């Protein structure tokens, strides 16, 4: 029986031990209470792989993407790079088998192209309906529109180590110089709201309506820039041309921001970057001024705040120690009032430091052909192709970008998760169309009173696509590959395992 354990809790992470207690029982021990642990472990990054398979591939994302082995209702048939991914139903699946024998995932960057595919019957479902196409879909009796709740944030990010944004006054000036209301009114579809805080207001804690963001005030912005001696500033704004629920019109919004900043005397050069390269660059802290957003993985403030403003995140430059401390306070108790008090202070500090400007919580929608049964939209998790039942042999879904790999432990991108989620499964999963967790590979789970020990009972008889049977060692091996930097399988694609570090802090044995 495998066990991985940290010698003490001072290594920088919050995971203390992961242990296979018996063949079908796994115990996670944490250094501090974590009310959101079930949500975290339901994330697609923590899908369970077969231990032997993981050893064979050495945890190499490229090798795993060639022939992924999971427990999901679909297995990979073929990934034609640049074209499509084809799945076929897995005959030995433990639960309800896939409704359609073949599922195809395709992608097209253009909203108009996706809609055309749907209208012409080449696709059964599409992601991110163009903000100007909501009506078109609704008027078409052959199609149906499913709106996705706005559990996301679109922000304008700064890096506080790259000039001119190392000057607090410049960031503050930009905050005054951007009219967020105008952006949302003009460029966002219905269902979108102007962001007052980083966390959506629909969450139990995290948003602070009593700490509203800076009012639009171009005069004050100009004064601040003058005070900082940064008049006639020239900056480069970077973004990726990928449509997201939080940013349905990247190019147009970038130009709007360009136009708005011109009014306060800032000349903005716009640069579009390739999606993967852009994210890597942001994560590495190399982008000075950029457009990005975040869709919820689970409905808790920790998912928004801890991920972005925790001690490990370099995307805004140097992390703010006082914010880090408050975040720890907010995450270490289940008492909502105490948590909200901590997050109110966090929001005050975010407003003062302006590491980013929260702009909008964007509404978005998926569209399906009207005859697709089981059509759904999930607020925080990936779509489940297995429940989709069009009256045809194949379910075709067109999303807006190609997945980066098929090993999602080392990925953070929604399109990639959609591809992984059909093949792999997690201990717990999100109920269709909701943000609540339900048992998946684990039949049941329980925790001790202070939320530091979580024990999962695995479902017996679950088969992997390679014929192996799921046991507790597979779970430990999967987690250890991400957690332990000295583990031979700790490789991935870039080795950053973003979700692990975001949820559980530093790696064990980090170099």
């Amino acid at each position: 029986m495998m066990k991985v354990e940290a010698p003490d809790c001072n290594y920088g992470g919050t995971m203390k031990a992961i242990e296979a207690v018996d063949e079908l029982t796994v115990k996670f021990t944490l250094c501090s209470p974590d009310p959101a642990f079930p949500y975290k472990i339901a994330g697609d990054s923590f899908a369970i792989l077969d231990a032997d398979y993981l050893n064979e591939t050495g945890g190499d994302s490229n090798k795993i993407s060639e022939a992924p082995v999971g427990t999901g209702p679909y297995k990979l048939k073929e990934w034609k790079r640049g074209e499509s991914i084809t799945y076929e139903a897995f005959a030995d699946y433990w639960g309800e088998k896939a409704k359609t024998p073949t599922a195809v995932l395709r992608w097209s960057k253009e909203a108009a192209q996706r809609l055309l595919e749907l209208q012409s019957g080449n696709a059964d479902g599409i992601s991110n309906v163009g903000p100007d196409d909501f009506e078109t879909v609704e008027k078409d009796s052959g199609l149906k529109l499913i709106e996705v709740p706005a559990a996301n944030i679109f922000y304008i990010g700064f890096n506080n180590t790259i000039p001119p944004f190392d000057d607090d006054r410049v960031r503050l000036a930009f905050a005054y110089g951007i009219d967020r209301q105008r952006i949302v009114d003009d460029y966002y579809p219905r269902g979108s709201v102007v962001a007052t805080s980083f966390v959506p207001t629909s969450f139990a804690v995290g948003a602070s309506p009593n700490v509203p963001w800076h009012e639009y005030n171009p005069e004050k912005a100009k004064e601040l820039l003058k005070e900082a001696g940064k008049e006639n500033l020239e900056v480069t704004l970077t973004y990726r041309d990928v449509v997201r629920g939080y940013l349905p019109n990247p190019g147009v919004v970038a130009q709007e921001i360009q136009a708005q900043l011109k009014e306060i005397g800032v000349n903005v050069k716009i640069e579009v970057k390739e999606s993967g390269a852009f994210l890597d660059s942001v994560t590495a802290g190399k982008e000075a001024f950029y457009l990005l957003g975040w869709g919820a993985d689970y409905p808790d403030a920790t998912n928004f705040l801890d991920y972005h403003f925790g001690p490990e995140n370099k995307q805004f430059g140097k992390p703010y120690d006082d914010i880090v401390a408050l975040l720890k306070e907010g995450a270490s108790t289940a008492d909502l009032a105490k948590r909200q008090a901590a997050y109110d202070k966090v929001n005050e500090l975010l407003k003062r430091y302006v590491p980013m400007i929260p702009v909008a919580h964007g509404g978005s929608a998926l569209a399906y052909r009207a005859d697709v049964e089981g059509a759904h939209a999930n607020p925080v998790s990936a779509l489940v192709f297995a429940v989709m039942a069009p009256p045809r042999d194949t379910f075709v879904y067109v999303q807006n970008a190609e997945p980066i790999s098929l090993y999602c432990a080392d990925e953070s991108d929604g399109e990639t998760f959609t591809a992984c989620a059909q093949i792999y499964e997690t201990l717990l999963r999100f109920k269709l169309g909701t943000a609540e967790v339900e048992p998946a590979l684990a039949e049941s789970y329980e925790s001790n009173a202070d939320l530091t020990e979580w024990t999962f009972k695995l479902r017996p008889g679950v088969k992997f696509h390679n014929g192996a049977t799921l046991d507790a060692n597979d779970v430990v091996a999967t987690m250890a590959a991400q957690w332990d930097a000295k583990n031979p399988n700790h490789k991935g694609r870039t080795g950053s395992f973003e979700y692990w570090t975001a949820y559980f802090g530093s790696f064990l044995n980090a170099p």
Partner: protein
Amino acid sequence: MIRRLLRNRSAQVGLIITSLIVLTAIFADIIAPYAYDQQIRQPGLRRRSPPCIHLLGCDRNKPQLLMGLDSNFRDLFSRVVYGSRLSLQIGFLTTGAAILIGTLLGAIAGYAGGWIDNIIMRVMDVLLAFPSLLLAIAIVSVLGPGLINTLLAVAIVSIPVYARVVRSSVLSVKEMDYITASRALGASSARILFLRILPNSLTPTIVAGTLGIATAILDAAGLSFLGLGAQPPTPEWGLMLGEERNSVFNAPHLVFFPGVAIMITVLGFNLLGDGLRDAMDPRRRV
């Protein structure tokens, strides 16, 4: 020759179209009602509004928008008008540079012959072997996106055409008697090449150049469409098309007008080029 040109029907049409575009470019400031990056915000005026022309019965209380508003509340007509400036600059600059370098290379290759000729022309062959847009994309990928780099890329890919044209005309005249006579009189190689031989290649170069402007405008628009050329908010036609490519069905005017502008300009230069060729070709004399 000019009379012959003016009698040619396609040249007439081409000349009219190109002159109109040149005039538009020169007087863009006067013709365009707004600046190309000015947002027109009025209550009740939505972005991507369709054209509103008072003469055609549009409500006179609304501002006149000949081609409608674009996605960022800017007057599309003004942008298309300013775009003519950019496209013409791109066309003339790149073609000019390409002719200059191409002529020089072709003349040297043709006149010197031997291994020099071999080296220059094989390099040109290699350049020609690539599809021009693909090569331009490769060059821009290396140099980074931007208008200047696009100009360079388009200029580089169009060099071989002129080098070939000039070389062939140099080859055809360099063995003629009057060249030998000139040499016998003691003229230097440079003098013979530039004053005696090169003028012969003027005609084919002008024809190729006129047609080349059309190609250059198209290539530059293509690069901008792909996001590799001009960067927003520059009113480049290709860029405008590329940005609004998702609007084909819900706001067609946003792609229609820039597209038509590119088409008319390219058509104009192509007609003019064809007319020039017909007029200057001695065998086609009517």
